[in-house]
């Protein structure tokens, strides 16, 4: 269809527009009519200090970014693979979820290497669970204990 340059003259055009319900109201200061979408003045570039993984759906790194928890270890390798695939792919998201789980184990190893024994009871907030929901907490602990006991028993019998 030919682009209608006189679209503003179409009868009724824009008469129902409600500025209070326009997604960019009230600070909208750009309409797109200037055809200047990408020619904006960019800020200075933040300098790299750590490895940053960049989505392959954009040409370059953004002007600022977070530099916390850079990829490392096995989880880092999985994350690097994930970022070779676009956000549209299972191959991006599923490896990232896997990497998160691997990263948890790496965190435990890191703690151990630093001589830190994580206080699971405190980190999981079980004190307040016990305080406000003791029945559920006791049920959880009982089921957990039974599962661990069953697992250990199974391993011992298997070794015999």
């Amino acid at each position, binding site marked *: 269809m030919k682009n209608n340059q006189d679209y503003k003259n179409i009868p009724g055009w824009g008469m129902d527009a409600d500025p209070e319900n326009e997604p960019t109201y009230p*600070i909208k200061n750009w309409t797109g009519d200037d055809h200047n*979408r990408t020619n904006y003045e960019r800020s200075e570039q933040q300098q790299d200090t750590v490895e940053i993984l960049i989505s392959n759906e954009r040409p370059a790194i953004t002007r*600022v*970014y977070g530099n916390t928890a850079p990829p490392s270890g096995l989880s880092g390798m999985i994350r690097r693979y994930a970022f070779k695939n676009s956000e549209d792919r299972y191959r991006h998201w599923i490896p*990232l*979820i896997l990497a998160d789980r691997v990263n948890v184990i790496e965190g435990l190893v890191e703690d151990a290497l630093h001589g830190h024994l994580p206080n699971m009871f405190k980190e*999981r*907030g079980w004190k307040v*669970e016990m305080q406000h929901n003791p029945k559920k907490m006791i049920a959880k602990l009982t089921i957990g204990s039974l599962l661990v006991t069953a697992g250990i028993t199974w391993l011992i019998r298997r070794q015999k």
Partner: protein
Amino acid sequence: MLAMNYRGPYRVRTVDKPMPEILHPEDAIVKVTRTCICGSDLHLYHGMVPDTRVGSTFGHEFTGIVEEVGPLVKNLKVGDHVLVPFNIACGKCNFCKQGLYGNCHESNPMATAVGGIFGYSHTAGGFDGGQAEYVRVPYADVGPTVIPPDMDPDDAVLLTDVVPTGYQAAEMGGIKEGDTVVIFGAGPIGIMAARCAWFFGPARVIIIDHIDYRLEFAKNYAKCEAYNFKEMADPVVFLKQTTDWYGADVCIDCVGCEAEGNTLQTFSGRVALMQAGAATAFQWAVNSVKKGGIVSVVGVYGPPFNLAPIGNIVNKGITLRANQASVKRLLPKLIDHVQSGRLNPKGLITHRIPLAEVSDAYRLFSSKLDNVIKTVLVP
């Protein structure tokens, strides 16, 4: 400095972290005065958001005092008490120019689907968040807003996310005078959406949840009808029945990926992670809205492959609107609502907990203990 530290699903602790530094000339360092745990932090806490790395600090709702500014920061000075919108926005890109601060194109290199967000995984830019004593605030001239002298800091901290997100949820619903509005989820955002929906002139506002104390709170705070879906044979049929069998004019999903209410959705979305979380609330919203109605979504969902009822969206001619709130765009209007007394954000706050007890605070909120609605952490 003391900071919250993520160690894995359902495990967080406070640690001593290095002080944040100015990494960009438009950065500021803010000394946190108040910070909240948001319902969407729970998706991170539960391990539902991909690329949530061990060692990260969460927290996208905070106020603080400007401690240091980069050489190019003009609008802030050391000592200003600011509220910091959860979006990190450059203010210059084509999306920011449209007021879509939640969709900034210059703050998140790790994904294009979302802009940068404080403390919200590397999918949202890998920034450390405000559940700490100090935080680095990029693009400090754009987001941070000096708290008006007559405003209660408790109101201010809720203007960083809860109030704008609830308001935008209602705004995106395109509510007209006399409409019936149904809101799924009676968490802080759902309650605020219900309260803000009235600003658009509906005749009925209905909120749906499965926890009685939250429904009671919503009924009192937002002056709306409140129903427990566990007491219904089928919430969609109930909502059709109560709207003359036509459906609601506007349905708002304030739940997102961790919805209760459907075993298949729960298993496939929350347990097996086969889709973008349990889309139960979204399904109910699409199926409860009238033909030609509007569904507004602010609930957080994960990656693609969701079982969205696209057939019903097409067949019913539904308008679907969704976004992260563009906080900065809405602040002038919302500050006016608060200052004039039309809105009382701090009324949502039920718990104040020291930052050092962050693991207890997360568990309290996650397990919905002690009638919690909204928790403020105090460093």
